[in-house]
């Protein structure tokens, strides 16, 4: 990916905020990233176009899935220099609570990091870290440098 090369060449290989800003779909959802040490927390501010059920209101299940997937991808790219963006092989999502119209946060844990495949667990939450609204585990195909 051209952007990944450019980020490496300008010493910004771990600038996940710049990466997200370059992905049209991440901009459309409004996803950003905060770094704390070697951990990335993703942030999804609430916006009206993310709603799936206007009666509750609740965030769309697809947005929750996309945010879980993006959280995993960003942590993998922070941990490793890759040639291309990781490709999702599969993802299994548990919906735990409805996503209320407030800011949502995400954190990924890489449970196994192989040369070509990574196993990643992801959790997203809103006001309370101990009450996740959704969790996922997925396999991602890597293209290490």
């Amino acid at each position: 990916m051209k952007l990944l090369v450019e980020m490496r060449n300008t010493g910004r290989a771990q600038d996940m905020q710049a990466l997200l800003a370059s992905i049209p779909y991440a901009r459309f959802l409004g996803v950003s990233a905060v770094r704390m040490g070697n951990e990335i927390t993703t942030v999804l501010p609430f916006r009206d176009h993310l709603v799936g059920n206007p009666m509750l209101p609740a965030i769309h299940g697809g947005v929750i899935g996309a945010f879980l997937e993006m959280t995993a991808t960003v942590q993998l790219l922070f941990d490793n220099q890759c040639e291309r963006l990781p490709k999702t092989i599969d993802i299994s999502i548990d919906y735990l609570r409805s996503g209320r119209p407030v800011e949502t946060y995400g954190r990924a844990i890489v449970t196994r990091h192989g040369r070509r495949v990574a196993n990643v667990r992801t959790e997203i939450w809103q006001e309370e870290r101990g009450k996740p609204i959704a969790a996922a585990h997925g396999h991602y195909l890597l293209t290490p440098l």
Partner: protein
Amino acid sequence: MAGHLEETPHAAALGMKVERWGEQKCTLRVPYAEHLVGDPDTGVIHGGVITALLDNASGMSVRSDESSAERVSMATLDLRIDYMRPAAPGKDLLADAHCYRITTNVAFVRAVAYQDDPADPIATSVATFMLGTASAPRL
């Protein structure tokens, strides 16, 4: 029945349209659009769009007659997606969902996302939905 998607803000934001709906089946379409791109180098649509499409089509297949659409409140329990290949840039995405079993409390759904041919899938999914859930958010 097509009104359902217009009342779903995120489905409207993705440009989602109903192709077919009824008899426990639902086919939805998302037209290709620049703001849905996940890799700016290739123009390939982000996997998250496919997740949203499969989730929405799967849910609608459960409520495939108007009476149940009004009556049954439900929540996605889980959704498992296998990605077979990237979506070709510039082409619409479609998803066919089939609710193959409904019990008192749970609905079971299989779905496939594709572009030209359902036999050449981009992704396949299985989902379960809890029926008769509370209409207020779970805290």
